[in-house]
């Protein structure tokens, strides 16, 4: 099958959905001729024009908030927030407006909008351009949180996100944009709230998100040479979370390591671990382990940043602690 980078897969999802539904439009900083800070919206303006691929000023509250108003009145905006770190500038519009309108209004408003945003450390971009803040949004009733790790998932999940009638935070890890994977040319959907087993195994379950899925797969490959069979589960959406797939895997392996790039304390893994404690305690043979970033801002120097980002070795060590 044809291979695309994650960047190109997201671009194709936008292109095909915009072609299918005239109510879908893209807005954000430098998304037009510039093609987006990470090149994700490249070429869309040529096909759909400046009326549907809209360069905004640097004005995050108005980007997200205008999308809320447009969604409430019948459109399906896809807003790009250049870096996930910038969500702080517009947080009120996300968590007090977009997320709550439906509930506050007694179910009488529908807010079908997507906020695409790039997370992740790895380029010495330091503390305000590198964060993984997905746990913030998992905590807000009314939002959905999507976090793909492959080209196939990115395209199918974005299509589902655009068609979903709720506000969706679509998190793209900027250091896997170049990763290639098989992607069908036709439009297809990957359902929200459905995890995917990226590698089957029988000794330990590793639940990993976004870039960490790939670190986990590398770790699994290496561990297999030592006779340890690792199953890698990618939740793909963090809200709603697919408890069932996670629990099914734990029933098989009885041991679990959760890996994410967000800081460990109150990170996505905290909720996943709590869910496992609630619903799968009897299947566990060992404590739930978490591999995640330390409780610090993201540092600048490559030496420090490398220490900060969870890597293959840390995952291998965590698995070995459980299998020793």
């Amino acid at each position, binding site marked *: 099958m044809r291979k695309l980078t994650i960047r190109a897969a997201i671009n194709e999802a936008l292109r095909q959905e915009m072609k299918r539904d005239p109510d879908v*439009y893209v807005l954000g900083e430098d998304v037009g001729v510039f093609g987006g800070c990470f090149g994700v919206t490249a070429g869309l303006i040529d096909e759909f024009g400046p*009326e549907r691929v809209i360069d*905004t*000023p640097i*004005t995050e*509250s*108005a980007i*997200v*908030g*205008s*999308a*809320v*108003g*447009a*969604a*409430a*009145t*019948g*459109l399906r*905006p896809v807003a790009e927030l250049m870096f996930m770190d910038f969500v702080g500038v517009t947080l*009120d*519009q996300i968590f*007090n*407006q977009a997320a709550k*309108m*439906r*509930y*506050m*209004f*007694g*179910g*009488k*408003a*529908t*807010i*079908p909008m997507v906020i695409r945003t790039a997370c992740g450390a790895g380029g010495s971009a330091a503390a305000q351009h590198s964060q993984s803040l997905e746990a913030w949004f998992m905590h807000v*009733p*009314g939002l*959905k949180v999507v976090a793909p790790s492959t080209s196939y998932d990115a395209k199918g999940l974005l299509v589902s996100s655009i068609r*979903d*009638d*709720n506000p969706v935070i679509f998190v793209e890890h900027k250091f896997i944009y170049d990763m290639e994977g098989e992607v069908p040319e036709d439009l297809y959907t990957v359902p929200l709230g459905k995890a995917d087993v990226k590698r089957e195994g029988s000794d330990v379950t590793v639940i990993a998100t976004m870039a960490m899925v790939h670190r986990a797969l590398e770790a699994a490959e290496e561990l297999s040479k030592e006779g340890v069979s690792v199953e890698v589960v990618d939740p793909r959406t963090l809200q709603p979370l697919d408890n069932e797939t996670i629990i099914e895997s734990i029933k098989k392996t009885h041991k679990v390591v959760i890996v994410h790039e967000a800081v460990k304390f109150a990170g996505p893994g905290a909720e996943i671990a709590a869910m496992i404690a609630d619903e799968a305690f009897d299947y566990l043979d060992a404590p739930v382990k978490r591999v995640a970033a330390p409780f610090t801002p993201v540092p600048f120097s490559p030496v420090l940043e490398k220490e900060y980002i969870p890597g293959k070795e840390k995952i291998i060590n965590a698995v070995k602690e459980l299998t020793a």
Partner: protein
Amino acid sequence: MAVEKEKLNWMYRNMLTIRNFEERVAELFAAGKCFGFVHLYVGEEAVATGVCANLRKEDYITSTHRGHGHLISKGGDLNLMMAELFGRRTGYCKGKGGSMHIADVELGILGANGIVGGGFPAAVGAGFTAKYKGTDHVVACFFGDGASNQGTFHEALNMASIWKLPVVFVNENNFYGISLSQKRSMNIPDVAARAASYNIPGVVVDGNDVLAVYEAVQEAVKRARSGEGPTLVECKTYRYRGHFEGDPTVYRTEEEVREWKKKDPIPRFETRLSQMGIMTEDQMKQLRDEISNQIEEAVKFADESPWPSPEEVLDDVYA
């Protein structure tokens, strides 16, 4: 300016309805029938009335924490509003929103808002939809003097102006952001002066003169409908009651309140209506009685309505 008789009648009826509704809510709140935070619009009736007299059903408004007057003016159902204030299942939001979150998207009411300045961007978005879809719908975005100091004010007016969106930004300047007077919250006498930053018209009107508001907003709506972009209309007005029910209002003098009450929009309009020969005192009294009955019906409806059942707490989080 010639305003048709029917419209003048509507304006009078609407202002009376707001006044009566709000004064009744104050009593009901004191009696423990409505809960939470209630911010009343008494004294500011001419603004919402004069603005919405220019709007069609398919036009939009965004409202504020002090939203009852806006909702009534845009056609909000009194029974459903009152039931919401009572926290009942029959209320506009099924008891999920309360005073600060009433919406009726069908009527173009995109919601009251508990966040000061929270509604600016949504108003721009609704204006964007109108432009994107090629309709001639307009949006009236209500906000207070305090909200004009929020960052969203700047972001929204800038975006609406560069994209020439059909939004009328209606500033209800009642001179206080909770307890802080306008003199201490900004270094200019007129919020409308801020329009210069966006190269859009900024107009100051007497917000206690319903016809002055009507006329100023008529111009702004015309401009918006014809694709010429937004306008900032500042309406100077005053709230008779505190910021919220229970506010001891230690930050202003009784004399100041008395002075403003001399400029009360309702008696002023009554005088105009008599002078113009639109309505006699008898007709006015009849209308006042009629509205009073209507409000009592709303109270009865709310009071007799069922509470939500506890398990409804889980409904409507997601579509």
